């Protein structure tokens, strides 16, 4: 019997995703566990495995389709010799639109395929990505040069009606429009990740009362310890390792969180949540955004364990292969821009966490010790704090603990 393969929910928050690629084609035999397709969600690219076996009878959603809602049928699996129905049940929801990006990418192809003889000018039928707007709203929008696709409808089922357009027409023009350069521009459709970043960070920065505390930390002792540790490592083979400064700072953050646990917390409307484990989210930049894989229980792990885990997480993050639980649910974030030589910066809190540490580059500079000027490697770290959870003195106390751990780095190995 024909069965539908549905768009899976690959994470608890996933409501839609992009069907990135089919790894099987129509007619292919499928065994349970075979990878059928790759799906790009808000966070990562993940594989869809077959549950049943059979023949991939029909692909309902083409590769590249964006915004495919969870539970939309994406393909039909049939038994050998079985006819392929157009759809399995009449009540199946309609397949979502093919990606607009695809039609932009291949206009030439489409045009070539069109019949050479085009009779009269025929208004195009509405595509599936149609905008629901009244004819009057469309006309008034056109007369006022308003992009109707940017409006939110207040009519039945969100239909854009005259009052919505009139409200937009009377609204002050956004300064952004003036800022658009006169020269040629091109538009890049938002990736799912870009949309999530925009939404989450806007929400974080506009709803969390941030404040920032900075401190300078001397790195020389830590750098010296790192050299000693790395010197112990085998140069290759299973026993080889190379601890990075970042690995040590992750550990230092975890140790500091253990010393000042009030920072390892979350704010909710009803209560404050305090975490036992120091699960450190590490910001990793990837081609179209960033992601924060988590080094769990970093306080309990050795530098070598942290180093191996972090390396693996970063690698898979850049390949888009992280599992949801590997980037969801940390308790504290670290963003390190030291490798870019930045002097200092402050970061936006990654909710529901209450703090994030922004780590800048270590710089050689003179410091006064006693009555002498001596050279030292100094880095500025800035803690961004949710004031609903953490007060200034607590933040300062935590930074002081962090500095003391970094400047006496044996704390990281005991």
């Amino acid at each position: 019997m024909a069965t539908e393969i549905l768009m899976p929910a690959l994470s608890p928050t996933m409501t839609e995703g992009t069907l990135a690629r089919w790894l099987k084609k129509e007619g292919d035999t499928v065994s349970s566990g075979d990878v059928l397709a790759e799906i790009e969600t808000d966070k990562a690219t993940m594989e869809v495995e077959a549950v049943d076996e059979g023949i991939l009878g029909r692909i309902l959603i083409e590769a590249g389709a964006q915004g495919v809602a969870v539970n939309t049928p994406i393909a039909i699996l049939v038994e050998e010799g079985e006819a392929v129905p157009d759809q399995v049940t009449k009540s199946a929801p309609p397949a979502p639109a093919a990606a607009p990006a695809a039609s932009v990418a291949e206009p030439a192809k489409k045009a070539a395929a069109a019949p050479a003889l085009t009779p009269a000018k025929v208004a195009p039928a509405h595509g599936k990505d149609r905008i629901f707007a009244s004819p009057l709203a469309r006309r008034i929008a056109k007369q006022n040069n308003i992009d109707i696709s940017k409006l939110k409808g207040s009519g039945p089922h969100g239909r854009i009606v005259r009052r919505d357009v009139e409200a937009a027409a009377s609204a002050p023009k956004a300064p952004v429009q003036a800022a658009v350069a006169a020269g040629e521009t091109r538009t890049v459709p938002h990736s799912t990740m870009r949309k999530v970043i925009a939404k989450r960070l806007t929400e974080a920065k506009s709803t969390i009362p941030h404040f920032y505390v900075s401190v300078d930390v001397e790195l020389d002792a830590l750098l010296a310890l790192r050299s000693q540790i790395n010197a112990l490592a085998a140069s290759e083979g299973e026993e080889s390792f190379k601890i990075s400064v970042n690995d040590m700072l992750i550990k230092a953050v975890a140790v500091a969180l253990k010393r000042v646990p009030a920072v390892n917390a979350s704010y909710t409307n009803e209560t404050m949540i305090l975490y036992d484990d120091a699960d450190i989210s590490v910001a990793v930049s990837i081609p179209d955004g960033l992601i924060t894989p988590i080094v769990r229980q970093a306080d309990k792990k050795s530098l070598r364990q942290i180093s191996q885990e972090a390396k693996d997480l970063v690698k898979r993050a850049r390949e888009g292969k992280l599992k949801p639980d590997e980037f969801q649910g940390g308790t504290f974030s670290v963003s390190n821009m030291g490798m870019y030589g930045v002097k200092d910066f402050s970061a936006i809190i990654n909710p529901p966490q209450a703090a994030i540490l922004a780590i800048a580059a270590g710089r050689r500079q003179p410091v006064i010790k006693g009555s002498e000027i001596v050279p030292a490697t100094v880095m500025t770290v800035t803690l961004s704090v949710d004031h609903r959870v953490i007060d200034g003195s607590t933040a300062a106390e935590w930074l002081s603990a962090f500095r003391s751990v970094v400047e006496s780095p044996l704390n990281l190995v005991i």
Partner: protein
Amino acid sequence: MSQTNFDIIVVGGGPGGYVAALRAAQLGLSVAVVEANHLGGICLNWGCIPTKALLRASEINHLLHDLPAYGFKADNISFDFKAVVARSRAVSGKLSGGIAHLLKKAKVPVFNGFGKLGELAKDGTRKVLVHEKDAVTATLSARHVILATGARARKLPGLEPDGKLVWSYREALVPEELPARLLVIGSGAIGTEFASFYRNMGSEVTLVEVAPRILPVEDEEISAIAQKSFEKQGIKVITSAKLGALSKTASEVSVPVEAGGKTQTIVVDRVISAVGIVGNVENLGLENTKIVVDRTHIVTDSLCRTAEPSIYAIGDIAGAPWLAHKASHEAVMCVEAIAGKTVHAIDPTKIPGCTYCRPQVASVGYTEAKAKEAGYKVRVGKFPLAANGKALAMGEPEGLIKTVFDAKTGELLGAHMIGAEVTEMIQGYVIARSSELTEAELIETIFPHPTISESMHEAVLAAYDGALHF
């Protein structure tokens, strides 16, 4: 012991109240209706429906007297006036029973009696006391109360209906015999419908109006066509009229009417006073609330909320236009808002109005004059029914369809119709106006042939490229 505490209590069982109750029940809310007289209210018992039954009879009488036009011959045409009236009552009775059945099916209890607002209890519920002949027969409570008590005929000093010689709509609906001479005061929907009924049954009818034209809320052109048609039918129409004091004998009424600088005394057997209506705001216990009453209507916001939280007013009691379909629509909107659904406030310019005189009149939105007054540059299209095949085939060539568009946006600002069956057709324009269609969609719409409704299409074409058949 039956249930006394509800989510919603609706006071009044007319087209506002009973519809509110049915919608509330559909949405799973517990609801009760308190009704003092008849389920269905004025509309069903003393308004819309019984008048339509009478007008159908008068239309048949008109056709019977026009038989030669269709090639028929008949002699000694007569009618039993009591049977005509009895039929009208039977139609109302049947529908009122139908509403009782609908409410029963929806498990909505109906409390017979006069509902009065009581105090607000500590738990946020409102008491509603049901009175029957001064005795409280039930004490109910609810989180929300919808007032839907309707309206009644306005009584002008000197023109008070006496139930014998001077009638309100109520007596005019149940006449014992056909008056030979009738004066109708007021040419709104109610006045013109009675003028039409009695004239088509054979009474000598005079219709007086203080405004410069009959059907004063309609487009001027429509009023003019209506007046011409009425006069052709033998109705004497006096506009810009000033009425003097009535003098009555045992069987006659004399009314001095001044118009155009001349005063004439009109002597008739009966007078119908149809000079507007007033809201039923008395004895509702409004003094126990913050509800604001402006003249005889409860002041509400666009979602029917009164100044007192959790008390709503819908239909005639909440003000003009006094139309059953406005009451029913407000009922649904009000209940859905209570249930937390997304609702849209009613735009009065999207409420159609229908008058069932002969010829019928129907309209929606701005008249040409009102559109200009509002600052629109308009495009107007007109199409006479005399150019419509179906109207001619039916022997009903009298009438006009008129459209008013915003020249700038193509918005259908208003539509005005007079002629056969126009009350059944106006919804086409109402849908266009509610859905914000422009002339383009209306022009692209295929209207069926042969129908009178083709004239609606032509009236749109006339406003733009030009009508095809005129």
